[in-house]
C-alpha cells in the first residue's frame, strides 16, 4: 500500500452466480487527479463503482483509502468517508421534494444551493424529483455530492446525453475539484473529453484492468485498442461475405423519426435480405428507435413505411402482424423467468384469441424442438428459463421468433454479456436469416460485430444519423469516430 495514493483498489473480483463481472481489477488514484475509467459495455466499470461505493461487496481483493483498508457497508458509509458517487440514473427519490431528498442524505441546503448557483442553475427545492428533467436531475445529484466535500468524486457516465453546456459545467467542476486537491474518477465514452481533462486513464476489459497510462494528447488509439483488446478471440469468426444487395427492394423505410428523450430526426432504410447495423454510444436514442419500430412506443413525429406503405403501430401485435419482430436489449423484459423454455419459445403462438384453445401438442413439439435444435439451446435447465445462462436465454428470445417467422428482426444488443462461443452462434444465426431473405436491424455496443455480421451500418449520434457506412468502411475506428460525433466520409 502506497501512502501517497488516495485510493488503491487491489485485485478486486466479483461474480454473480456463473457470471463473472470482475475478474481482477486494480486501480490507483492520486490526490488531485482526474482519473478516467474506460471500457466497453460489460467490461466491469459499473460493478467496480458499485463495490467502491458500498452498494455491493467484492468477493476478493481489497480497497484502501489514504493507505487504510476500507470496506463500505452502504453508500451512506462511503459518502461519510469522502467517496461520493453520481450515477447515470440519479439516486434521488422520485416522489419526494428536493428539500426532503437533501434532508435524507443529510445535505446542507445552503451549501447545496451554492453549488447549484455555481453551476448557473436555479432549482425550486419544493419541486418533487419526478417532475425534473433528467439532465437537471443529474446536475442536482452532482451538486448534492459536492456539498459533502468528497475526497473522491465518482462520475459514472454522467455526461452521456447531457447537453453541451451542462457537460462543460461538469468538466469545470472536475477541474475545480482538482485545484482543491481532490480527486475524481470519471467514466465517459467521450474520448475528446478524456484527452483534454484527465490526468490518468485506466481501461477495463472483461473484468481486468488491461492498461493504465498517463492521459495526454493523442491517446485515442491507445484507448481504443485497449478497449477492443486482442482481436484474435474472434479471429475464426467468419466475416460477412455476401455483398450488399443494393438491387433488391426496400423493406422498411424510416423518415424523420423523432421521439422520446433523445431521438430527434432519424431517416434510413432497410432492404430485403439485408443486415443493417446500428452503432451508437449509450443514450443516443437508439433504444427508443427500436421500441418505435417494434410498436412498443409511439413516435412524436416522422413516418415508417413498410413495403412502401405508411403504417402506424398501436401495439406490438401490429408490428408482428407485418412481420417485424423485436428482441429487446434487456432480456428480462422479453422472458418469463419462472416458465419453461418451451413456454417461452411458444409464447407468440397464442397471441390471438383464435389460438386460445387446445394446444396442438405434436405441432408445438415439432416447432419448439426445431427451434431448440437450430439454435442449439442447452435444455438441461428446461424447467425455468431464469436458470439458463445469459447466452441460452438470449437464444430463447430469438428462437421465439424463429417459431413464428418474420420479415424483419430488430435485435438490440443481442450479445451483451454473452460468452464468445454463443456470440459466434448468434452472428451465424443472423447471417443465416439474411441468407434466407430476411432483414435484420442490429444494434450492438460491440463495434466489431458490425463488420462481422452486417451489410451496411448507420451511426446515430445525439438522436440523428451521423454516418451511413458501407461494409468496407465499417472498421471500428470509423464507427468509433462517428459515434463520438466526428465526421467520417462514407
Amino acid at each position: 500500500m502506497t501512502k501517497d495514493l488516495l485510493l488503491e483498489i487491489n485485485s478486486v473480483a466479483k461474480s454473480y452466480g456463473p457470471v463473472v463481472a470482475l475478474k481482477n481489477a486494480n486501480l490507483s488514484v492520486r490526490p488531485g487527479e482526474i482519473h478516467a475509467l474506460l471500457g466497453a459495455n460489460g467490461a466491469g466499470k459499473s460493478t467496480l463503482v458499485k463495490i467502491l461505493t458500498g452498494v455491493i461487496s467484492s468477493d476478493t481483493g481489497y480497497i484502501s483509502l489514504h493507505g487504510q483498508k476500507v470496506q463500505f457497508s452502504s453508500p451512506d458509509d462511503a459518502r461519510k468517508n469522502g467517496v461520493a458517487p453520481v450515477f447515470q440514473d440519479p439516486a434521488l427519490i422520485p416522489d419526494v421534494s428536493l428539500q426532503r431528498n437533501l434532508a435524507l442524505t443529510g445535505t446542507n441546503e445552503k451549501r447545496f444551493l451554492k453549488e447549484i448557483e455555481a453551476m448557473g442553475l436555479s432549482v425550486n427545492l419544493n419541486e418533487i424529483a419526478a417532475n425534473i428533467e433528467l439532465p437537471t436531475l443529474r446536475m442536482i445529484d452532482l451538486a448534492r455530492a459536492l456539498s459533502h466535500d468528497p475526497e473522491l468524486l465518482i462520475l459514472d457516465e454522467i455526461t452521456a446525453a447531457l447537453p453541451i453546456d451542462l457537460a462543460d459545467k461538469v468538466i469545470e467542476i472536475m477541474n475545480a475539484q482538482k485545484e482543491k486537491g481532490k480527486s475524481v474518477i470519471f467514466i465517459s465514452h467521450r474520448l475528446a473529453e478524456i484527452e483534454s481533462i484527465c490526468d490518468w486513464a485506466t481501461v477495463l476489459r472483461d473484468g481486468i484492468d488491461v492498461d493504465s497510462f498517463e492521459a495526454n494528447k493523442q491517446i485515442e488509439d491507445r484507448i481504443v485498442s485497449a478497449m477492443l483488446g486482442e482481436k484474435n478471440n474472434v479471429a475464426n469468426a467468419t466475416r460477412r461475405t455476401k455483398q450488399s444487395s443494393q438491387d433488391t427492394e426496400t423493406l422498411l423505410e424510416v423518415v424523420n423519426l423523432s421521439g422520446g428523450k433523445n431521438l430527434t430526426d432519424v431517416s434510413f432504410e432497410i432492404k430485403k435480405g439485408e443486415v443493417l447495423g446500428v452503432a451508437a454510444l449509450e443514450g443516443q436514442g437508439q433504444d427508443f428507435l427500436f421500441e418505435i419500430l417494434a410498436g412498443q412506443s409511439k413516435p412524436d413525429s416522422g413516418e415508417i413505411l413498410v413495403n412502401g406503405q405508411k403504417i402506424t403501430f398501436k401495439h406490438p401485435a401490429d408490428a408482428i402482424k407485418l412481420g417485424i419482430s423485436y428482441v429487446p436489449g434487456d432480456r428480462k423484459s422479453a422472458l418469463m423467468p419462472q416458465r419453461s423454455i418451451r413456454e417461452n419459445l411458444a409464447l407468440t403462438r397464442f397471441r390471438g384469441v383464435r389460438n386460445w384453445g387446445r394446444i396442438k401438442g405434436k405441432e408445438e413439439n415439432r416447432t419448439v424442438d426445431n427451434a431448440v435444435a437450430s439454435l442449439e439451446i442447452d435444455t438441461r435447465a428446461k424447467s425455468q428459463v431464469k436458470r439458463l445462462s445469459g447466452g441460452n436465454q438470449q437464444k430463447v428470445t430469438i428462437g421465439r421468433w424463429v417459431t413464428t417467422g418474420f420479415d424483419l428482426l430488430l435485435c438490440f444488443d443481442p450479445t451483451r454479456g454473452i460468452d464468445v462461443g454463443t456470440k459466434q452462434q448468434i452472428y451465424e444465426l443472423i447471417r443465416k436469416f439474411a441468407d434466407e431473405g430476411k432483414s435484420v436491424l442490429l444494434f450492438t455496443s460491440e463495434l466489431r460485430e458490425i463488420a462481422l455480421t452486417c451489410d451496411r451500418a448507420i451511426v446515430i449520434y445525439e438522436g440523428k444519423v451521423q454516418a451511413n457506412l458501407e461494409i468496407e468502411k465499417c472498421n471500428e475506428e470509423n464507427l468509433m469516430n462517428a459515434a463520438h460525433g466526428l465526421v467520417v466520409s462514407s
Partner: protein
Amino acid sequence: MSTLKNFATVKVSKSIWALFGILIGLFLLTSFIDPYFFSIPAVGVTLSLAAPLGLLAAGQTICMLTGGIDLSIAMIAAGAAFIVSVKSPSGTATALLWGALFCILVGSINGLAVGLFGMNPLIMTLGMNAVLIGVFTVGVTTFLKGSSSMPEILVTASNATFLFDPFSWPLVIWAVIGGMLLFLLNKTGLGRLIYAIGDNAQAARLAGVKVWQVQWATYVICALLGGIGGVLIGGQSGAVAISLANPFLLPSVAAVVIGGTSIMGGIGNYTGTILGTLILTVLSYLLATINSSEAVKQMIYGAIILTLAWTYSKISQNS
C-alpha cells in the same frame, strides 16, 4: 427429442407431495380424535363441503396466476346464488343462465378495469365488493324481492350422493370443473397466457399478446367459478343471503397461498390449490371436533398459512 415434454418443475411436485403429506397427517390426526371421521360417509361429507371452497379458490388461483386477486368473489358467489334463487320460478335452467350472465357482467367489469384501465386489482375488486353489497342490500327489498331458497333440484344436487359414497354431486361437479380448469391451465393457449402475463406482462405484450384480453377472460372465468361455488353453497345451506359466501373469501385466498401459487403471479397450479382447500377443510373439521374455541381456531388457521407461505418462500429462495 421430447425432453421438453413435462413442464411441471421438480420443485413444484416436491412441494405438492409435502402438501399431500400434511393433508394425510391432518386426516389421520382428526380420525384419531374422532374415529367417525375415518369412514366413507365422513370423507364424502368432507369432500362435498370442500367443493364450494375449491371452486372459489379455483377462481382465485387463476386471478393470482396473472398477478391479480379477486376480493369480490364472495359477493359474486352470493349474488349468483341470489339471482338463481329469485329467477327459479321461471325454471332452473333459465335461473342458472341469469346467474351466469350476472357473473359474466361483473367479471367483465373487473377484468376490463384491470386490463384496459390499469386499475389495481385489489382496489378494483374491493370497490366492486362494496358496490355488490349495496346492490344486493337494496335488491333484497326491491328488485330481488321474492325467493330466498334455492330451487329444489339444486338443493338436492348440492347434497345428494352420486352413485355411492363417498362420491357426492358437489364432489363430482368440483372434479369435472377442476379437471376442466387443469386442462385450461396446462393444455390451452389461454392457460399459457395466464401464466405468461403473471410472470412478465411486458414480455407477453412484446410477444404480441393483448394482455387486457387475457385479463378480461381471467376475471370472467373467475366470476363464473365463483358463481358456481355460490350456487353450491346456497344449495348446501338451503337458503341464500347476502352474507352467504363471506366466510369463504379469505379462505379462498388462503387455499391458493397454501397451495403454493405465488401472489405475484406466474408460478403455481390448481393441483396445489386443491390440496390447500382440502387441508383447510380437514383443518376446520379437526378444530370443530376438538371443540376448540373460535379463538384457537383462528390462531391455528393464521399460523398455518404463515408457516406454509414462509416455507415456500424459503424453498424458492434456496434454488
